[in-house]
Every structure is written in structure tokens, then in C-alpha cells.
């Protein structure tokens, strides 16, 4: 049995920042499904928000204004104490990342450059061209190399060991060796990322299965606000690769088949820089009402950068140009980019407080897999990179405090018995059944994209729940081709699939039950926000029967009273 003081699961920004914060004082182990540098944080493009007030047009920006924009963007579902904390910390962590070597783009005066982003009152998004996630993840990974953090690359967690009130560690799977290994830890932190791949159309990396959320849920940890799914307005058609919001921040237009900048009919003041939920609905409406364009890969809207000119595109959006050339054979200097809204971000996740603590003693969560909640019903662009690093840091402080106060004793017998249970499960997967994991997964993804998408209604959500129930039945007959456990990606997929089914289930159930429209959750049959009945978080917890039990939790309001969200 492997043992660490602190076990961190996930090698993206949140996990690495937590590791850096704890490794000087504790024996830290970091498990990552891929080499940390391959984590999905690397793909973030546009930037990270912090009220540095560097932009000449933002000299009076403050963290309070950032907090207000965040809360308003969340459609008032964010916990305001947590949002305030994040925006205060933002300034510190951006400078910290800079001091650790992050190569931010610069203004002429030598300060960190900041650009406008959707839903923000000021240009406060710090960036490094359109490769901000790439430079931040490299910088933090470099920091873990400097600190000598113990990393277990290509290890995968397959179960969390929780006795109901306390976490004892995890059961891990070493993909290269094909071994199942119990890991005892005084504190366990999940920083496992989002669930984009439960959707058919998603900007997310292939590794973003959301299994961390599903693992926590199956271990009895409460999960929050799963019905709030962000659809990014601009995913490339076909591959659905993200076209950063910075395309619009730098001045790009959205146009329909008539060449019209249609956002003027939806949000004339903010135009293309309205928050993502609103822009995605506007684009989808244009397509649904026949004003989209046709391509063999699907209907689309144009993201037009041509008027920005070659020089600006090459200087500010070089990564976007590269992706367009590589993946659709289009040079955005010469042609508009064909885009459609795609699943992009998981606002919901493992229910934590502002210290990243969950209901279970010794178990913490941070980053996209967690729901503090700072994003509420809709996340602003530039706030996700921010959340990962801020809450990675805060998690490290909270874990330190917990361990200093003694923590709790781990029971190895629980880890051993869970390991045996997982061995049996894997044995069944490789020896029985007849359904390929991917056929089940494809059906799940299609259900989620067609029935739990941008526009929702009761009948469709009911149908989605019915489909998911049937797909769960089929999962009982899933079969993996090879009994060899090492480098068996099909086995990995089959194990994750079970957790993805649970994640999809509680997304659809939350959406079915929430009879209002708020942020990214839009119900055609309840098209307005209803604070009287629904200004509350949805909590899903797996009951003893394996079915979700739903309850609610109060939204924390400090000084921003809910009002109509207008841009």
C-alpha cells in the first residue's frame, strides 16, 4: 500500500498549485491520468482575470468591480463571499505566477497586458497571446519540477474510499504497469477537471470525462448545481476545437448568412462581448431560425476576424490561426471561421465551501471538478484559469490547517476491501458482457447534446432521463476486449464510463427539476428567472439505493442584491 500525507488527484493548474503549496511541509503525491503538462488547462487560450488596472482604460478597476461582474455574470447564483475572495486573491496569484516565470504579454509600459472579455466592465483579462493556459500550466509545472513534487504520471483513480464521514484515500490504477494500488492519505484533494466529454459536441480534451466528479458522487460526496453547463459560443465546426473569446475581445464579429452582425438584435450594448450564455443562445437562435450557413459538417455562424488585419491576428491570436489552418484549412486573415456553440465548461461539481472542503472530512476539491460556487449559473471568460490557481492555493492552505489540527486516522482495512471490490469489477469487465464501451458512450453523448443542451424543456429532459436509465442498464453488459490490464485504454474508458453515466444523470435530473431559466440553464417552458423559488443551489447525493437524492442549499449573498441581469 502506498501512503502519503496528501494525495492530489489531477495534474492541471489546480492540482499543481496545491502541490506547490504543500510539498515543502508534507509528503505529497500527485496522481495524474496523463503527464501533467498534457492536462486540459493547457488548452485555455484567452486569459485570466485580475483587477490589476494596467490597461489605460481601466485605471479605476478594483477587485470589488471584478466581484460584481462575476456575481452578475453568474445570474446571482454564485456564493458572493467566495466570489469576493477569488477576486481579491486574483491580483496576488497573477503577480505570483509572473514572479515564477509566466511570460505574460506586456503593455508598452512593461506591465502585464490586459484585454476586454465578455461580461466584464473593464479590460482586466491578463493574457499571453492566445496561449494563456499553455504558459500558466508550463510555469506551474516548472515550479513543481523546481520543488521536486512526486508525480505518478499515467495513474488513474478508480475509487474514493470514504466511510461516510471521513476520507481514507483512493484506489489507483497504474496504467503502464496494469496494477491496482490502494493509496492511503491523511488528506485527499480532487482536481480532476470537467465533464465535457459526456456531451457529443464539446470543446474539451478527450480526457475530460468528469470521472472525478462521478467517483466522488459514488462515494457519497454531495455534488452541486450540475444543471449549469456552459456552452461556448465559438467552437470550430467538425472538431469543436475552441476559438477563444479573445477573438471577440480583440474585436471579432459574429455574422449570419446575410452578413449581419446579429448580436445587435439581442444585446445591442455588449454586442459580441455579452456573456457566453447569452451569445450562445443568440447563435443557436440564428441557426434554428434559418439564418445560419450550411457546411457538410453542420450548420454554422461566421466568426469574422478579417477586419482586424494580418498584423493584429498574428500578434494577438497566432494560436487560433494555427488551429484554423491545421484543422479546417482556413486562414482567418482571409476567411471567416465557421463556428457553432459547443459544451465548454462545468459550472457545477463537487460541493465545496470557500476552503475547498467537502462534506467528507479529509476530502477536498478544487478547479473545474469543484463547485464553490464562484461561477453560479454562468461563468465569465477568464475566470476559470483564475479559479483553478486561486482555489488550488486556498486548498493547500486549508489542507495544511486540517493536518496541523491533527487530521484523522486512516483505516487500511477499508482501502483493502475497496481494492478487492475494484479487482472484482475489473475482472467482470474483461470477462463478461458483450457491449462495447464506445457504443454506450456515443448514445449517452447524443442524448446529452440533443436533449440537455442550450435550450431545454420538460418533455426532452424527461426523455433524457429515460434514455440514461436505459443506457445504465446496458452498461451492466459492457465488455472490454483484452484481459491484459497494462496500457489498456479500452478498460480505462469502460471504468470511466460508469462514472460518466452518473454525472450525466445528475446533470439531466438537475435540469429537469429546476423550473426556471438562470444563466446557462434555459428552459423554454419556464423562460424567466424565479428568485422566489429557485435562488438556491441544487445538491445531488447518491442515496443507499444508488439513486440521486436531491436537496438544496442557500446562496450566500453579501452586498450584491439580485437584480435583473441586463447588458
Amino acid at each position, binding site marked *: 500500500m502506498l501512503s502519503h500525507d496528501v494525495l492530489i488527484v489531477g495534474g492541471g493548474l489546480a492540482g499543481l498549485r496545491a502541490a506547490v503549496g504543500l510539498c515543502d511541509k508534507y509528503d505529497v503525491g500527485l496522481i495524474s491520468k496523463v503527464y501533467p503538462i498534457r492536462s486540459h488547462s493547457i488548452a485555455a487560450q484567452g486569459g485570466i482575470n485580475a483587477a490589476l488596472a494596467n490597461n489605460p482604460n481601466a485605471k479605476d478597476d478594483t477587485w470589488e468591480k471584478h466581484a460584481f461582474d462575476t456575481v452578475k455574470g453568474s445570474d446571482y447564483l454564485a456564493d458572493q463571499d467566495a466570489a469576493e475572495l477569488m477576486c481579491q486573491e486574483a491580483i496576488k496569484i497573477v503577480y505570483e505566477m509572473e514572479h515564477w516565470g509566466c511570460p505574460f504579454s506586456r503593455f508598452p509600459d512593461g506591465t502585464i497586458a490586459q484585454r476586454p472579455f465578455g461580461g466584464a466592465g473593464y479590460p482586466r483579462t491578463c493574457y499571453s497571446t492566445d*496561449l494563456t493556459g499553455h504558459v500558466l500550466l508550463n510555469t506551474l509545472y516548472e515550479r513543481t519540477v523546481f520543488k521536486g513534487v512526486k508525480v505518478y504520471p499515467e495513474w488513474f483513480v478508480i475509487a474514493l474510499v470514504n466511510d461516510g464521514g471521513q476520507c481514507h484515500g483512493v484506489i489507483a490504477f497504474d496504467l503502464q504497469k496494469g496494477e491496482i494500488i490502494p493509496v492511503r492519505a491523511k488528506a485527499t484533494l480532487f482536481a480532476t477537471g470537467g465533464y465535457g466529454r459526456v456531451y457529443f459536441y464539446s470543446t474539451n480534451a478527450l480526457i475530460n470525462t468528469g470521472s472525478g466528479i462521478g467517483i466522488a458522487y459514488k462515494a457519497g460526496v454531495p455534488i452541486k448545481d450540475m444543471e449549469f453547463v456552459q456552452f461556448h459560443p465559438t467552437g470550430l465546426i*467538425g472538431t469543436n476545437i475552441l476559438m477563444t473569446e479573445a477573438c471577440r475581445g480583440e474585436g471579432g464579429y459574429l455574422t449570419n448568412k446575410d452578413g449581419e452582425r446579429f448580436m445587435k438584435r439581442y444585446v445591442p450594448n455588449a454586442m459580441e462581448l455579452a456573456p457566453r450564455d447569452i451569445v450562445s443562445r443568440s447563435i443557436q437562435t440564428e441557426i434554428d431560425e434559418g439564418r445560419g450557413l450550411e457546411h*457538410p459538417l453542420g450548420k454554422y455562424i461566421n466568426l469574422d476576424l478579417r477586419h482586424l488585419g494580418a498584423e493584429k491576428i498574428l500578434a494577438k491570436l497566432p494560436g487560433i490561426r494555427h488551429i484554423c489552418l*491545421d484543422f479546417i484549412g482556413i486562414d482567418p486573415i482571409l476567411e471567416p471561421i465557421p463556428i457553432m456553440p459547443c459544451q465548454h465548461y462545468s459550472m457545477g461539481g463537487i460541493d465545496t465551501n470557500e476552503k475547498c472542503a467537502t462534506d467528507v472530512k479529509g476530502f477536498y476539491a478544487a478547479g473545474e471538478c469543484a463547485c464553490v460556487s464562484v461561477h453560479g449559473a454562468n461563468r465569465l471568460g477568464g475566470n476559470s484559469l483564475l479559479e483553478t490557481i486561486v482555489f488550488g492555493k486556498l486548498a493547500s492552505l486549508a489542507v495544511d490547517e486540517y493536518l496541523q489540527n491533527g487530521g484523522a486516522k486512516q483505516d487500511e482495512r477499508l482501502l483493502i476491501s475497496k481494492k478487492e471490490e475494484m479487482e472484482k469489477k475489473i475482472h467482470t469487465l474483461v470477462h463478461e458482457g458483450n457491449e462495447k464501451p464506445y457504443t454506450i458512450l456515443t448514445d449517452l453523448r447524443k442524448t446529452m447534446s440533443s436533449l440537455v443542451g442550450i435550450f431545454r424543456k420538460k418533455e426532452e429532459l424527461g426523455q433524457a432521463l429515460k434514455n440514461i436509465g436505459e443506457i445504465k442498464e446496458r452498461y451492466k453488459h459492457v465488455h472490454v476486449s483484452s484481459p491484459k490490464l*497494462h496500457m489498456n485504454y479500452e478498460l480505462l474508458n469502460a471504468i470511466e464510463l460508469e462514472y460518466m453515466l452518473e454525472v450525466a444523470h445528475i446533470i439531466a435530473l438537475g435540469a429537469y427539476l429546476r423550473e426556471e431559466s438562470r444563466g446557462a440553464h434555459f428552459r423554454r417552458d419556464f423562460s424567466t428567472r424565479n428568485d422566489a423559488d429557485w435562488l438556491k443551489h441544487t445538491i445531488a447525493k447518491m442515496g443507499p439505493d444508488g439513486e440521486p437524492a436531491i436537496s438544496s442549499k442557500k446562496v450566500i449573498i453579501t452586498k450584491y442584491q439580485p437584480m435583473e441581469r441586463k447588458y
Partner: protein
Amino acid sequence: MITENYYTFKILRYDAKEPDVAPNFTSYRIKVVSGLTVLMALLRIQEEIDGTLSFRSSCRSAVCGSCAMVINGKIDLACRTQVATFGSNTIVLEPLPNFEIIKDLVVDMTPFWNMYEKIRPYLIRTSPDPDKEIQQSEEERSRIDQVVNCILCACCYGACPVLARDPEYAGPAAIAKLERFVLDSRDERPASALDEVNDEKGVWGCDTILRCIDACPKDVRPTDSVVSLRKKLIKHKLFGKGIK
């Protein structure tokens, strides 16, 4: 119109856990649309035909560096290579050279990471940090544009003829990473930091035949870094100049 064509993928199969079974090619025939990438084709083969096939992937958008391999003799990322690129309906896939195979297209990257860690790939400063950002001009920032783009995919490592004969050579990616920090106006590592690469295992080992530049999917041009660090070393060792 999107057209569909049959393609044959010949994929090298090998399992280091079964060394008695020699590496061999397995052929898979699938119908794909012409714009499809090699990575998407591999995923379809794994999902629909042969679940035992092993390869790495993550972002599928040429930013994470997982899926470097040899595609019809050329080293590249599978995710950014379209199946229609080759004017042939047969595509041969092999693992990245200069590494031990773990299974099929998955190689053991340990030597690559060891070299990366050896050059101390992090900002080194002796001055105290300011309250705000360390000032850096736009021009100073732009000096590292090219080397910052490295995604550590190891295409260059696989393409390097020096590594093929000397596994102790630092390799293109590690040298480019070292230059990324040496060039950074904020970095204050001493000139002695270049001693690590001042020999045949370092910058003087390079054949300068530019295979790494050819293989790099991100235009990092590691040979430029080799040449630049050689110049800095000469100026420093012979003329006592700093390395900045």
C-alpha cells in the same frame, strides 16, 4: 461535398511485457471522411475494431503534445495530420524513435523528462520579487516567443540523429527550454548554468542538420537555440561576456 474513402492503417504492434513476440504490423481498413485526422481514425479503430490498440491522446487540437508518432515516415502529431495528406490510401503508423516502446504507439518518455529536468527548466532569480510584476518590455517578451511555444511533444527528440547514436545527449527540446530561460529578461541564472550543456552531451553534440526544426509542429526551431547558446558560450568563455 464531403467524400468518404477506405483507408488502410498499418500500425506497429509490440508489447514490452511480451518481449518474445516480435514487433509486427497489423492492418485495419476503415472508411473515413477526407478531412479526418489520423488521431480520430486511431480512436475509431480502437473503439470499433480493436480495443487492444494503445496510443496516447488528450487535447486533439495540437496543444497538449500527447500524440507524437511516425506517420508514413514523417514525425508529427497524429491529431493535426489529416489522413488525406499523403495522396495514398495506406497509412503506416509507428512509435516515436529514440525511445523504448511500452506498448504499440506508446513509448517510455522517461529519458526525455530527465533531460528536461536536468537543465533546470524554471525561472531563477536572486533579486527579491517586487510587489507587482517584474517589468518586462514588449520587445524583451517577444524574444522568447518562439521558444515559449514548445509543447514538449518530443517530435524533435524522436527526429534527432544525435540521440539515435548517443542517448546521453540532452536533445533539442531541453536545449530550447534552456534558451527560453536564458533569453528571458527576468531570469538571473549565473553564466555557469551553461556549463551543463558545454560539452558533447550538450550544445556541442548537435549535428546542426535541422531534423528537429523539420519535425517540430510548433515552429520552435530548437537548432536556433543550440546555435544561440553556442555563441553565448564562446562569448562568455573566450571574452568573459555575460550570457544575457
